[in-house]
């Protein structure tokens, strides 16, 4: 008689699922990239469902503004590493599965090593550079991607690259948007429960894909609107935008600059790392400008001038210093502000911004 585990009793008794599908979950390995809003909800259902091996990739630490939607974390976790913290919670939920935490940001150097050990990849990231990077690595490694993304009250879900002839993200969006084209969650906000629902749908698609159930969102993109409850499913295929620019092999992939591809650094604006940024503080003829809205936390502990980004849109500020160093929460608004200032001052001033924003700074200081 086959071994039954009471933990999965409701899967065994589920018609069309049963012992066989449960065994497939047990034998499967899934890599969740991004332990934010999408990752926190998908991970809980994947662990509870008994996926045999789960990997979690995230280089970030928990911030108080994450707690509104990243439901694996609690107030006492602020400042802790997301991947490790999530792994601990999930291991309590299901001690019978293997969970690995990778406290690092996905990049061209580590992507192949991380992804090749797993059967399915969940894209739960929050930026285009990572999304195109994950897409390309998975196309080259022939791994399916369960994709999720959110904007305000709407979310997208799709399964890419699940078979030889299936579409990937580049068939849908061949040209990456510019970083300045799309506002981030810090700026436009997101209903906290939205990534919870979209992440849960990613878990559904992952389970369907592994268990061999029907209706996987392969070659289809689902859009869900939480205000109207309207769903909109469009079809796509690998013939659309077939001349996509996925690098031809691993060596070409590792030479790709995805930050540049997605418009972060095309302009001559200097991207400062945290250490470089800290060196600018107190320098002669240098103005450090916080472009966050008044009251955004955490407050900077160093001397700076606050010019909220909303004021930039109305009327560009006059800044006397010839070195202007901008920062915001995540590095997106500061980059947009830098581009606006660059148009105004051309090459008469040196304009730089803190890449990764206050979030990166805090991580560096607490890390």
């Amino acid at each position, binding site marked *: 008689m086959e071994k039954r585990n009471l933990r999965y009793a409701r899967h065994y008794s589920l018609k069309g699922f049963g012992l066989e599908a449960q065994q497939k979950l047990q034998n499967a390995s899934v890599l969740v990239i*991004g332990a*934010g*809003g*999408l*990752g926190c909800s998908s991970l809980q259902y994947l662990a509870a469902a008994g996926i045999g091996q789960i990997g979690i990739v995230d280089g970030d630490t928990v911030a108080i503004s994450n707690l509104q939607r990243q439901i694996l974390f609690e107030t006492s976790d602020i400042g802790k590493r997301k991947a490790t913290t999530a792994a601990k919670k999930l291991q309590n939920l299901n001690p019978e599965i293997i969970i690995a935490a990778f406290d690092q940001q996905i990049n061209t150097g580590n992507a192949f090593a991380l992804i090749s050990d797993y059967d399915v990849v969940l894209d*739960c*990231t*929050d*930026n*285009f550079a990572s*999304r195109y990077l994950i897409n390309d690595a998975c196309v080259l490694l022939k791994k399916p991607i369960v994709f*999720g*993304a*959110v*904007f*305000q009250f*709407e*979310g*997208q879900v799709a399964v890419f690259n699940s078979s030889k002839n299936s579409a990937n993200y580049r*068939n*849908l*969006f*061949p*040209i*990456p*948007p*510019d970083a300045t*084209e*799309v*506002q*981030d*969650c810090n700026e436009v906000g*997101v209903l906290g429960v939205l*990534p919870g629902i979209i992440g849960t749908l990613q878990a559904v698609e992952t389970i369907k894909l592994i268990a061999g159930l029907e209706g996987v969102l392969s070659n289809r*993109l689902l*859009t869900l609107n939480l205000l109207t409850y309207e769903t*909109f*499913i*469009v*079809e*796509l295929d690998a013939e*659309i*935008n077939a001349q996509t620019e996925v690098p031809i092999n691993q060596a070409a992939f590792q030479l790709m600059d995805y930050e540049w591809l997605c418009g972060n650094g095309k302009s001559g604006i200097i991207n400062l790392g945290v250490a470089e940024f800290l060196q600018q503080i107190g320098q002669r003829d240098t103005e450090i400008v916080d472009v966050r809205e008044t009251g955004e936390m955490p407050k900077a502990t160093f001397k700076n001038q606050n010019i909220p980004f909303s004021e930039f849109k109305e009327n560009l500020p006059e800044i006397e210093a010839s070195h202007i160093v901008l920062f915001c929460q995540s590095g997106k608004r500061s980059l947009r502000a830098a581009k606006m200032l660059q148009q105004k001052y051309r090459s008469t001033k040196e304009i730089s911004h803190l890449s990764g924003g206050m979030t990166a700074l805090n991580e560096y200081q607490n890390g």
Partner: protein
Amino acid sequence: MKIFAFGQIAEITGKSLEIDAADTDQLHQFLMASFKELTDRKFAIAVNKKIISKNVALHQTDEIALMPPYSGG
């Protein structure tokens, strides 16, 4: 024909609009001329719930969707 816009495209064009165009290229030109903020915006076009990449002839009853990429997570 009915055009539905999603995400940040809807913030520029409104959620739905009525435009008559002979094909998707003409529709695209009309949108760019009518909404300056759409310049350089990336979005996929679906005709009757199928994503298209080449120019497609349009009919009065067609339903068109303008779908931008979302980055949030």
